[in-house]
């Protein structure tokens, strides 16, 4: 059975929007980080769906790149969040007022 590529695009659009809204409205840094990951994974859905649609393997290769970059980004991001927690004993963005947000 073939699922039309539009269905995948709607799915990825929804996942992307959930991530986007999450970044904008949540205040916990870990949740914001997870929302950013959702945005990146929506991209991966797109890449894979288009790759199957065009019969073009390039899209699947892009997913590996995107995953690797996301992993590197999360590693640095979590380290920063830990350093931040040591200073403020909080990871709520509303608590960071040393610099005007």
């Amino acid at each position, binding site marked *: 059975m073939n699922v039309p*590529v539009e269905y995948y695009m709607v799915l990825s659009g929804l996942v992307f929007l959930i991530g986007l809204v999450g970044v904008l409205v949540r205040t916990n840094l870990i949740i914001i980080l997870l929302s950013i990951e959702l945005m990146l994974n929506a991209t991966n859905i797109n890449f894979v769906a288009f790759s199957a649609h065009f019969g073009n393997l390039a899209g699947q290769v892009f997913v590996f790149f995107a995953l690797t970059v996301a992993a590197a980004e999360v590693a640095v991001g979590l380290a*920063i969040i830990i350093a931040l927690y040591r200073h403020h004993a909080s990871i709520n963005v509303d608590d960071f007022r040393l610099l005007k947000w």
Partner: protein
Amino acid sequence: MTFPLADLVTILPELIVVVAACLVLALEPITPPRRKDGLAWMSVAALTACFIVTASGMGDRVGAFGNLVVVDAYASFWKLLLYVVSGLTILLSIGYLKEERIDLAEFYGFLLLSLAGMMVMVSGADLLVIYLGTELMSIPLYILAGFKRFEARSIESSAKYFILGAFSSGLLLYGVSLIFGAAGSTRLADIAAAVAGRGLNDPLVLMAMMLLIVGFGFKVAAVPFHMWTPDVYQGAPTSVTAFMAVASKAASFGALLRVMLEGFGGVRSNWTGLILGLCLLTLMLGNLVAIVQTNVKRMLAYSSIAHAGYALIGLVVAGWVGTNAGTVSQGTSSMMLYLAVYALMTVGAFAVIAILRRGGVEGDDLDDLTGLARQHKGVALLMLLFMVSLAGIPPTAGFIGKLYLFMGAVNAGLTWLAVVGLLFAAVSAFYYLRVVMVMYMREPSPEQARATRLALSPTAVIVLAFAAAGVVIVGVYPGPLVAFTSSAALP
């Protein structure tokens, strides 16, 4: 899979930078503390080697790895600029890191990795490669912004930079995935073909273009995507701020220009209006909010937003409807000239802030500059020079940069835009010259005079001298730089 050797030769500068970065990171733990400067000098040597390789290889367009990466005069121009800025940042950091007691040589490794990302960005001819370049540029910068890890301000700036940087990368990558769906490829040439065929009637192309503009808008700090800039620039170590304000902005502009002209050149009449709106908003907000700042680093952050607005004039000119090929290259070359000039004066201004100490901490408040001219005449004079140049007053480089931008706008039939730019330059003179006024006209209190000290290391002197000489020389004799940028401009 094998690569021809010629491809590796084409990306030789990138390879040198990455190898040098890895060497610095590997040698750091086994280097005794008093020999750490050696690693900084090794980084400078690598940059010098890259400069020679890039400068000697300048010329025709060469593609590598199946045209994923191109090296042309345009990319080479940005690379040369990035080497100079990185070299100046490293020289400035040698003394600054010791003063802040964070003299870890990893600093230079991360700086070089970030530089490698910027080089990939300006050389990329494929959106995915450009995306990888932006990530390689940004991830080390997140770390560098939090390098003063015992200071809450620095960590906070790092966290803010990370969240908004990762967010903007997510938008950029989603744009790349949509354009992949529309064109079946992420090569700029294939995108241009798809755009020429279907234009913006295809919602995928339209969405992708918007997301790419927003993503790059974050990276170049254009309003309304600028909100991270003041916080991050204020909290980060000053030499890192100089590097972010100049190098990452230049690389992002370089990539943005190539994507818009080579990828979306077919629909330039559709995106110029959008860029024009961003440009006007950026000029307005950057200049007006800078007026009320009392911290010099924060003021310079808003000034860097304003300068991004000026640089966007070049992109508007390059894409303006009805322009012929002559004004396109005039737009790109005036933007390149402007960013080169901006690099010199901004690095100089941040270098002055980096060496100014007030009672053990950085003197980055406007008050800390009070009466500087009485105690340290030379440094005050240099700051005066950089401020005058940032305001765009002749005979400095800043004037030449604005002159060519506005000339391009007038030639493209956008005289009103040049007038708006001129008006905001007049507004900016107010806050730049206020710094001069504080240095020259105010009397410092005795405690203040005692607490002020200059941490002037020999390498910082080199940075200041280089920036000042550049500002003056380009100001009075701009010919060679202008000729160089026009020969390297995108057609």
